[in-house]
């Protein structure tokens, strides 16, 4: 049994009377894709936000690579190798795709306080960034401003950024959203290969992708994990059917 890289235990987050995260525990082990599914408003984004550090939990512990990271800022978590992609926003919408990834490379090199050398002539930034873009299949669009990329391309860019950050684990928030069937298929194949390098906590509505990729699935309903298990476990779980299909079940 391998040690989980990411472990969330007994996490609680409330907004007023609403418990958006209700004593959630789950973990992510090396080499796996752990999918987090649930109906809209179940608290998936709130949970991801707490793991990434944009939201502060009211109670509970988040451990990454064996250490408690509750007190760390977003930037510090990122530097330790916890990568995250976002549902909507781009990193720097005015910058080209390439420069977006270069920012991530720059952050890894820990060298933002260099004032004179032009970045575009700096091979130690451009080359790794270009390589990351190539891996996600976006090299041909390197010069296009992020704001002008399609939804699907922006998802790919997000992953390229996470790769460039050298993330040891990835939180992917709906990477398939806004992608056509062809794009989804390509991305599914890519994520499948990626898991060996960095395990993935995947929030996704596209059930085909989830069932194709996930080693384990956790189902979140009203802030609670109602089930965790393999694809087959989840498919046959009566609670899950009730939560998803409601009264019709």
């Amino acid at each position, binding site marked *: 049994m391998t040690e989980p890289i990411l472990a969330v235990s007994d996490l609680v987050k409330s907004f007023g009377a609403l418990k958006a995260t209700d004593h959630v525990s789950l973990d992510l082990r090396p080499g796996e894709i752990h999918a987090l599914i649930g109906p809209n408003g179940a608290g998936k984004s709130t949970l991801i936000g707490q793991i*990434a550090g*944009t939201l502060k939990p009211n109670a509970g512990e988040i451990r990454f690579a064996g250490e408690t990271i509750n007190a760390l*800022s*977003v*930037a*510090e978590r*990122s*530097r330790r190798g916890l990568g*995250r992609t*976002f549902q909507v*926003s*781009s*990193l*720097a*919408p*005015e*910058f*080209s795709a390439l*420069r977006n990834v*270069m*920012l*991530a490379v*720059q*952050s*890894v090199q820990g*060298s*933002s*306080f*260099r*004032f*004179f*050398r*032009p*970045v*575009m002539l*700096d091979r130690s*930034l451009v080359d790794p960034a270009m390589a990351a873009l190539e891996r996600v299949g976006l090299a041909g669009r390197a*010069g296009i*401003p992020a704001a002008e990329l399609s939804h699907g391309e922006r998802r790919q860019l997000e992953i390229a*950024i996470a790769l460039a*950050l050298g993330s040891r684990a990835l939180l992917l928030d709906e990477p398939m959203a806004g992608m056509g069937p062809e794009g989804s298929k390509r991305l599914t194949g890519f994520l499948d290969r990626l898991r060996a390098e960095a395990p993935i906590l995947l929030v996704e509505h596209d059930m085909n992708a989830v069932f194709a990729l996930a080693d384990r699935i956790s189902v979140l309903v009203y802030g609670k994990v109602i089930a965790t298990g393999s694809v087959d476990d989840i498919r046959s779980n009566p609670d899950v059917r009730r939560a998803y299909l409601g009264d019709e079940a």
Partner: protein
Amino acid sequence: MAMRREHLVNAAIALLLLAVPLWASWAGQNFYVTLATRIAILALAAVGLNIALGLGGLVSFGHAAFFGIGGYVAGILASHAVSGAPLLGFLPGTKLMPVIWIVAILASGFVAAAIGAISLRTGGVYFIMITLAFAQMIFYFALSWPAYGGEDGLSIMLRNAFPGVNTLRPLPFFLICYTLLSLGLLLFALIRGSRFGAALQAARQNEVRTASVGIAPFRIRLVAFTISGMVTGVAGALFADLNRFVSPSMLSWHMSGELIVLIVLGGVGRLYGPVVGAALYVVLEYWLGGITERWQFFLGLVLLGVVLFARGGIVGLLAGRARHD
């Protein structure tokens, strides 16, 4: 394409700002040389602000503080050099411009770092109001502290000196200012293209995401704000030398507002935006001021028009939309 057109526009502006005073000096029209000097100095002050405002998106409504501090450094050091009395009991005064500039950079940088450390903990309108308030604090201090003239200001009897140059003549002094403006523009261009500039601009475009890739915006912004204040401080020292006078009005919030106006007239974040803005402002001031005493009324209307209808400023009109590579 747009990028190359902007280079051409910039080169034309740089040449024009150099050619007009050269011609005017040759034609014996020293008044125009002084006007061009004013443009170069205000442009340099605005280039400084443009580092914070244009690259970093930090709407500082308090840059008059750094402009005025630079001015007072020039005035105070010169007054001690003339009187012979050491400053604070041990520092000798000086009439040497390079020394004055270095002290102006240190003093305005120090104050900018202090103001930035407090105001950058917040954002948005808080930042605007807090920078305004701190500049006002320094304004009132200069007003009520009588050692250096208080309300009446401080005169510099004879313009400060630069080794090997006769600064008393308008053209050489213009050339000094033009050189410093060019250095300021070079610094801006280098920063914009550097790693630091990339982080600064990313923090403007998306603060949360920039943090999420491991670049903490606060420190980046604090350094940018400090550099920005330093450049504006040097311009202030030159401005005091141009007028041979420094008073609290250099520290006033109107001055802060004008610096923002220069940038927006020219084009926010554009390399030559401040230069175009300063040229337009000084020419408008001179031309409208010749027609009517109430020229600020019309300036207000022009400005309203630019803000409401002509976003992107003059450089935006001439060179098209800003593009990053």
